[in-house]
């Protein structure tokens, strides 16, 4: 089997409405899978289920061949990097302490941490002198980059990115996209990326998963989606993005 993560018939409903209808999804090793879809279609829910911030109502999730359960999740989490949509930076820790939190906990060497940190700052174009600031002292885009660094710090096997570049300016964003894509390819990094930007999806996505109202509507390459849309919603969604590109 080549899938790192395998979701089988996973469902979830909140008090008043289903958020995820029975969903199957496999995240291939070494590839970047992009999750797109309208706001509220269940993308974040899916990520939260994989890292088990919420438990699925039914269905199973396998990670690297073994089923994820409440018992083994804490260890598995060390192998997963997760960037939460809202940032989720701890206000009582500086940017540096936020990023190094887990590395320290796992008692990495100072040397190793320092090197990795510089690497990451360079990658995300984050000025090193801002590392001593608290989250409340950073701008929105700066915070987002700190979150990203925190997730990348331990070079996790699986990266779950929930709109990691949403608040970035085009300059940083363009180069970050380029670098990330390169790194992902070089390290054969398995990534599940949520974005609302079809261009970004097309750029990163070896495989694109389009969701709507709690269901996977179509899965395939961007070409598949554009040229062989499974239903009218797919073409509508793709064309909307196109119409944005006024420039």
């Amino acid at each position, binding site marked *: 089997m080549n899938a790192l993560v395998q979701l089988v018939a996973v469902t979830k409903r909140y008090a008043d409405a289903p958020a995820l209808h029975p969903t199957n999804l496999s995240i291939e090793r070494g590839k970047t899978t992009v999750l797109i879809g309208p706001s509220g279609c269940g993308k974040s829910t899916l990520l939260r289920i994989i890292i088990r911030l919420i438990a699925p109502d039914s269905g199973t999730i396998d990670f690297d061949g073994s089923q994820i359960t409440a018992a083994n999740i804490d260890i598995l*989490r*060390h192998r997963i990097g997760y960037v939460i949509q809202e940032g989720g930076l*701890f*206000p*009582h*820790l500086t940017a*540096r*302490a936020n990023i190094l*939190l887990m590395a320290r906990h796992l008692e990495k*060497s100072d040397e190793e941490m320092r090197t990795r940190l510089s690497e990451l700052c360079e990658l995300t174009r984050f000025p090193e002198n801002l590392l001593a600031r608290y989250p409340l002292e950073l701008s929105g885009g700066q915070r987002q980059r700190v979150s990203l660094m925190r997730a990348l710090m331990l070079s996790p096997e699986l990266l779950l990115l929930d709109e990691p570049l949403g608040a970035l300016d085009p300059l940083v964003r363009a180069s970050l996209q380029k670098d990330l894509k390169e790194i992902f390819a070089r390290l054969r990094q398995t990534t599940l990326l949520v974005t609302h930007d079809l261009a970004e999806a097309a750029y990163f996505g070896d495989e694109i998963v389009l969701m709507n109202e709690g269901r996977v509507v179509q899965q395939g390459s961007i070409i598949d989606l554009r040229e062989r849309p499974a239903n009218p919603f797919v073409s509508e969604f793709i064309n909307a993005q196109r119409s944005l590109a006024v420039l």
Partner: protein
Amino acid sequence: MKRIRKAGKEEIQPLFRRFRIVFHFCAVLPFLIFTCSLFCAQPVLIGSKKFTESYVLGEIAKRTLNEAGIPAEHRQGMGGTIILWEALRGGQIDIYLEYTGTIAQEILKTERQLSVQEIRDALTKTGVGMTEPLGFNNTYALVMRRNEAQRLGIRTIGDLRKHPELKIGLTHEFLDRRDGWRPLRQRYSLPQLNIIGIDHALGYAALANGSIDVKDAYSTDAKIAENDLVSLVDDFDFFPKYDAVFLFRTSLRDDAIAGLHGLAGTLDEARMIRLNAEAERTKNYTTAANLYFQNAVGSTVTTGESFWQKLARWTLRHLELAGFSLLLSVMTGIPLGIVASRGGATGNMILGFAGVMQTVPSLALLALLVPLPFFGISVRTAITALFLYGLLPIVRNTASGLQDIPRSLRESAIALGLAPAARLWRIYLPMASRSILSGIKTSAVINIGTATLAALIGAGGYGEPILSGLNLNDHVTILEGAIPAALLALVVQWSFDLLDRILIPKGLRL
């Protein structure tokens, strides 16, 4: 671990360490309690009965031991004969002053007059030792105005026979006693008919203004000197001997016993009367006790403990009581609060328990703890009670602080894969620190207030002046304790405010 410590310039480390420290305390808690009880049990404990002479002699014994390098504490005015005797037998005190007559009648329960040796032999069987008499006999006496006695030529009780016209005023107790007026009159064939019963204190006034001419008194009563009276010689040895002696536990350290024996034969009635008078004049037993040493040794003139010395002693003790109990409350309250924050039956039980503790009135709590074996009349009891009172605010604020952490941050911590303990240490507790510290501050202030009640069981602190002030209805004395207690509360609050700056992470104060 070493490596982590080296990375200490980062800000997460100090934070982590700060909280770690508190929890290391948790681990050594049993050891600390043990140390404390050793520490608390170590000084020689001297008890005294609730009257001036007993207080003064307690102070004398304390200073004697202290000068011999033996730590000693004086528990003043613990009660009457039976309470002191039982406390001595039970090991709650080591030494107290008693009178041979009282020992014979009330402790050994015999009607006979016993010799000192007979008494000592009887006591030894119960593990209690006795010094030789200190030198004065505090028994009943009949007293008269000195000038009147000289004028009439009366020196002994027998001399009263020649003056049947004298008006005699006696306390009701003396009128009633088996060794009181009736047998005395018989023994000496006294002819006086004009006998009235009169209150002891009023009797002195009556004697002074001539309403009566003779009254009964204790032979070392300070009033004898003050009112320029003379006590009549008991030429038929009618009154039983009440020689003052120190009783002590035979298990007491030898140097302490030796110190007590050294006091034998050093105090006659006249001197004891002077010491009692000094104590009543200055309202300070230590001053009176110092008078003894001054005359006896001719050494340096030490005046009694000054107000500032007393204040220092109270403050230290108060800090010890409030501080130690607060430490216990913090070490127990935070873990309990963490459990309570998860809600559910256990959480409710914990909050319920802490709440109930808070409800038991302090007086009742002390009353309930004192009879228990481990506790008794001790500092331990006071600290335990204070600890229980300080629990609720800490438990509750820890719980509500943790519950107030935004969900997104709780989830971030989980998603990072931090182990539950690390999550608590590094994320949840620091984020709840403001609320937790606010609980600790409330608890500290409550403890400082309630610690004043510790004086009720002789544990000292600012409660000492407050209680005696309440007893004497003396507002100045109340304030001597109340004002320092209030100031201490302010100081504690302010130092905690400083602590806020250290313990509440800067990122939360932006």
